[in-house]
């Protein structure tokens, strides 16, 4: 597989480029991932949650609605962190800023560049999710020691969503076209992946459909870890992430080469 053999440690140089831009503008980067989940937590958890009297049965524990919701918000931040970065972010760098063209004249290969972008996307998921997790943990909606593993899940899940986003980036003709993957994949996932309500309320076919979505697995893993529930979700989730990432990563590298090598 030449797609893989052209990837090297040099992709770190591209990762560092994106990191430097991030650190340079950290003030604008830091607040949204911090504030948004607090808003959701207040509106959905406290406001909407007040209407829900019964506790929610989850993995053998019964949780107040707001406690059920909190890990879902961590999962959502994992998805958005990488997906935004490697869709809009990567597209702007590739198409408008010609950053990829410039870097291609250095010893980096196109595969290095894509790998570097995806690594950075995963890093954004890691950063954002860790911030949200810290907020959630402080108010007790995520518990030790399981929560310590959530940043690891964030990075792995970040790799998956970054690769998926890169796949779309290699295909879309312009920035506006990202409306389609957002409308068709990201928003449905945001709503129907066991983030805001337990999947058990869905009919059988709905549950099966949800299990096909990447965010469902991230959401399950974040919630299980938050409340120290050790069951098959972790193993299934890990396998799902590995497989989904491998496929979308190879696909994105292949399509990106097709798009950019002229």
């Amino acid at each position: 597989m030449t797609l893989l053999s052209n990837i090297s440690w040099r992709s770190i140089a591209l990762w560092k480029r994106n990191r430097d831009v991030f650190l340079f503008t950290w003030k604008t980067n830091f607040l949204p991932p911090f504030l948004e989940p607090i808003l959701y937590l207040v509106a959905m958890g406290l406001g909407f949650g007040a209407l829900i009297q019964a506790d929610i049965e989850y993995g053998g524990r019964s949780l107040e609605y707001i406690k059920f919701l909190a890990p879902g918000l961590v999962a959502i931040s994992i998805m958005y962190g990488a997906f935004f970065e490697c869709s809009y972010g990567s597209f702007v760098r590739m198409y408008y800023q010609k950053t990829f063209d410039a870097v291609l004249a250095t010893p980096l290969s196109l595969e290095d560049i894509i790998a570097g972008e995806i690594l950075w996307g995963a890093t954004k998921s890691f950063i954002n999710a860790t911030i949200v997790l810290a907020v959630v943990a402080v108010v007790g909606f995520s518990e030790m020691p399981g929560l310590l593993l959530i940043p690891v899940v964030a990075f792995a899940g970040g790799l998956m969503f970054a690769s998926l986003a890169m796949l779309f980036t290699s295909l879309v003709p312009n920035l506006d076209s990202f409306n389609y993957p957002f409308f068709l994949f990201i928003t449905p996932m945001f709503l129907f992946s066991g983030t805001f309500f337990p999947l058990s309320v869905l009919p059988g076919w709905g549950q099966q459909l949800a299990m096909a979505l990447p965010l469902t697995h991230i959401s399950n893993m974040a919630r299980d870890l938050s409340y120290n529930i050790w069951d098959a979700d972790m193993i299934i989730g890990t396998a799902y992430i590995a497989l989904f990432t491998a496929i979308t990563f190879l696909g994105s590298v292949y399509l990106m080469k097709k798009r950019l090598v002229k």
Partner: protein
Amino acid sequence: MPAVRAEGLTKMFDGFKAVDAIDFQIEEGECFGFLGPNGAGKSTTMRMIHCGSPVTSGKLEVLGMDVNDSPRQIKQVIGVAPQENNLDPDFTVRRNLTVYGRYFDIPNGECGRRADRLLEFMQLSEKRDEMIPEISGGMKRRLIIARAMMNEPRMLILDEPTTGLDPQARHLIWEKVRELKRQKVTVLLTTHYMDEAERLCDRLVIMDHGKIILEGRPRELIDRVIGADVLEIDVPGDEMEAYVKERGWQYERTIDRLLVYTDQGQRVVAELKERFSMSYYLIRNATLEDVFLRSTGRALVE
């Protein structure tokens, strides 16, 4: 070992031949020019040399390495200043250089030293902390050239380096190219300024429609294609043209001028003056521009 060796080098874009089976060899340490009208295939050839665009067919070796087998090794030791601006708008002027140096795995301290030296030379030190959208077009051009030298390349590719530069900056670039030549760095240059090519290039090719139509040293090309002098005659008559043709002189008729190419300008003028009234004429030295226009035709290529 030649710096670049191309045999039957061809580039196709969906059935269109942008570069059509060209052969050339560039020796190490020389400044080699690519001239030609817009769309001739100069930039495409450059891109294949710096491994930015795959070769459709033919053979291409850079510093003894095949572009298909060793793109990383080639890119490590060459510098590229592309025709189009692709500076990183997310960074300041100086950061553009240091971040670029990092792609070559140059240690931070060394990156900083090189960046400062290059900024100094390109007279950009004052702008070091400005963001890219805030500097002028000519400054961007200079920064792109500085960036291409961050890895202290053995071979430098300059695709229209001085387009849009003021005279001072052009002389600055020329000085740098001459200095690099003294250090035995190979320089590949494309330009639309014939005086620049004549000044800097040891050898050059003129391309048109993807093919090389002329190759040689600038002086030698002028002698071969034009001769020593050009006689420019304003508002010529048809009889005059007929006479020039009959005498077997090399000439060209443009909309408002008759150009006679000769080694003996004075004698030709004297002879014409005897027979025709010439309100305005000019004898001047032949230049590379004459060679260019003569060989590629005067009409604008679409």
